[in-house]
């Protein structure tokens, strides 16, 4: 079914345009690329994939070579290692494959980065609950930046409307729809807190999620098996699951991507906020920080004594949520 979908897509757009030139440098063409301990497993499924390949041949306008290349790429993608144990070259290879596959599917170019963490950087986030007005510009920016599924309206950020005088999430509303800020209320955003002791990482049976050197908790979308144990383990509702094939209209796809960040996901895998890893690792602020019209969101390197986030931590009265669980979130709240 899935095979048919992608094939149908091909027919409609591949028919109108020249097949993309085949560039056979930078990635291996077929399944015989490298001999690994997975060799046996690869052979085992060879028949299966060949069958799928034949099925798509029958309805494809794209040339034979393209099809062969595509199947080879898909093949290598399926049997690649977990990203965290890949060598730099392997990371480079998978990123190139992903870029090429997208180009073959849509005719459009994307850039997928595999940029690693920078030394002496530990990202932290502070949220000013006196400033947030509940406008939710952050949510829009996040969805657009991170290529989240539009059909289920997946969102990483939740803005909770609290009545003055209490911080009780059970009584807070996150489905308000009226003019904001509402009289006598204040607003509080939650998202993945990138804990220093992330319970979601411990429970993953296949090490598909981990904490990077710069403190960002990431997921290898291609390694996740979709058991959702991490979802049960997260005390902050920081994780999201793709209950179906995520849909992002091609023209809305953010093409500036990172392997561990906003690259396109698939059905049946987890995803979450990555502090916009594709932006933050390039020195930019996450999309939510940039979009916030009130300056309620502060982001930076908490190891840098001259950073604003450090000033907030040292000079304001900060608190974190559910500190009793020992998760050590790197997401603080403060008031003016």
């Amino acid at each position, binding site marked *: *079914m899935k095979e048919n979908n992608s094939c149908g897509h091909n027919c409609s757009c591949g028919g109108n345009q020249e097949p993309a030139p085949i560039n056979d440098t930078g990635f291996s063409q077929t399944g015989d690329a490298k001999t690994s301990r997975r060799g046996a497993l690869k052979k085992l499924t060879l028949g299966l994939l060949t069958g799928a390949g034949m099925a798509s041949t029958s309805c494809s306008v794209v040339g034979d070579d393209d099809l062969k290349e595509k199947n080879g790429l898909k093949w290598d993608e399926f049997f690649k290692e977990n990203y965290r144990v890949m060598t730099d070259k392997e990371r480079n290879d998978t990123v190139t494959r992903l870029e090429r596959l997208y180009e073959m599917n849509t005719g459009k170019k994307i850039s997928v980065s595999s940029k690693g963490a920078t030394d002496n950087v530990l990202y932290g986030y502070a949220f000013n609950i006196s400033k947030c007005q509940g406008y939710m510009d952050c949510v829009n920016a996040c969805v657009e930046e991170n290529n989240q599924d539009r059909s289920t309206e997946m969102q990483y950020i939740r803005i909770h409307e609290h009545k003055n005088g209490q911080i009780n999430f059970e009584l807070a509303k996150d489905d308000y729809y009226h003019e904001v800020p509402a009289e006598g209320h204040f607003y509080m955003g939650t998202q993945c807190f990138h804990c220093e002791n992330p319970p979601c990482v411990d429970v993953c049976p296949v090490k598909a999620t981990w904490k990077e050197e710069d403190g960002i908790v990431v997921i290898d979308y291609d390694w996740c098996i*979709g058991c959702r144990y991490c*979802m049960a383990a997260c005390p902050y509702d920081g994780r999201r*699951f793709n209950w179906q094939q995520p849909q992002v209209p091609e023209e809305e796809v953010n093409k500036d991507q990172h392997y561990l960040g906003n690259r396109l996901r698939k059905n049946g895998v987890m995803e979450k906020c990555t502090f916009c890893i594709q932006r933050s690792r390039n020195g930019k602020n996450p999309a939510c920080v940039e979009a916030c019209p009130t300056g309620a969101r502060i982001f930076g390197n908490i190891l840098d004594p001259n950073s604003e986030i450090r000033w907030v931590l040292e000079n304001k009265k900060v608190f974190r949520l559910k500190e009793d669980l020992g998760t050590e979130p790197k997401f603080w709240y403060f008031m003016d």
Partner: protein
Amino acid sequence: MNQLKIFRSLAKDSISNAMQGSRSYHVWMGVLTFFMLLGAYCYYQQLTEGLVVTGMHDNVSWGLYISNFTFLVGVAAAAVMLVMPTYVLKDVDFSKAVLIGEGLAVAALIMCLAFVTVDLGGPGRAWHLIPGIGLFNFPQSMLAWDVIVLNGYLFINITIPLYILMSRYQNREPNKKFYIPGAMISVFWAVGIHMVTAFLYAGLPARPFWNSSLLGPRFLASAFAAGPALIIIILEVINRYTDYKIADKSFAKLAVVVTVAAQVNLIMLISELFKEFYAQTHHSLSAVYLFFGLHGKTGLVPWTYASLILNVAATAILTMHLILKSYRWLTVACVFLFIGIWIEKGMGLIIPGFIPGSWGDIVEYVPTWIEIGVTIGIWAMGAFIFTILAKSAISIEMGEMRYKKSE
């Protein structure tokens, strides 16, 4: 090589044995096949559309599948209540029932693995779980532990009965030196699978409803009530429909096990209820939802009370039996107990763990028909496997099926 030949012959005989039977047997197997096909169709739907076709969502991210998985781990563990007395303590009363018990364990384990597999978002990537080829998060992840203990238990429960049956098949007395150590290991292992499965939930401080030290012991108590209860029901059926007769003594002994376990389970339930309701905190909200509903959402309340009534009634009947030394209502009590614990350990445990959600959201969960179809399909598959295993075992035990050298 010779063993292989014998095994091949055994498999062939078992298959031909499974093909023959009375009319009611064929109807039974036909019905199971129908439900299995139905389940397969539903699973096909789920595979193509994604888990969106189930009733699960971001708030309640585990549902019927994981509920049944949890319950069936208990059923699988219960085989040990027959294995231990027979093999380790040399109690001959159970010897006729023990192979049935192990067959049940095998069927229950296969169902467990099937339930976990259908719950995966990417079953095609399940090979990431294979140590060596994939990347296994051991010993941090309790799910990794669970994969090991479940497969290990499956291995033990296949090899021991297979060895015994192979011996009997060749008219030989099985060598105790081989199977007694295996049986010993399986005793620990049975406790292990259940404790590990309990720890899977108990190890999540994010879900206060599960994060209780009583969860493991309570799992054990309910498992040793529900499992042997199911064995009693099955033995009753075998007694009635086959020539393989189980001694009344075996029933009586099993009844004692079930009764004690059910009583302990009730005591633990009371202790949990006291803790949740005497001094209610934020962490008691799941229990409040389970027993009374929250904010007008009362989806689980009727189930909870049904489970409570069934459990109490069954325990009362079983206790009376023990006092009066009569077992008139034994099967009824066992059916009550089985259903009661199925509700309690399944939806009564998994779903309220997610309600209220991390930020207090109360979003209820109702399984869809597709989900129910897959679940029924897996239960049918379990029953199918068990029927074949039990039929072959009985035939060998009764001497109807024997290895013929000439073949």
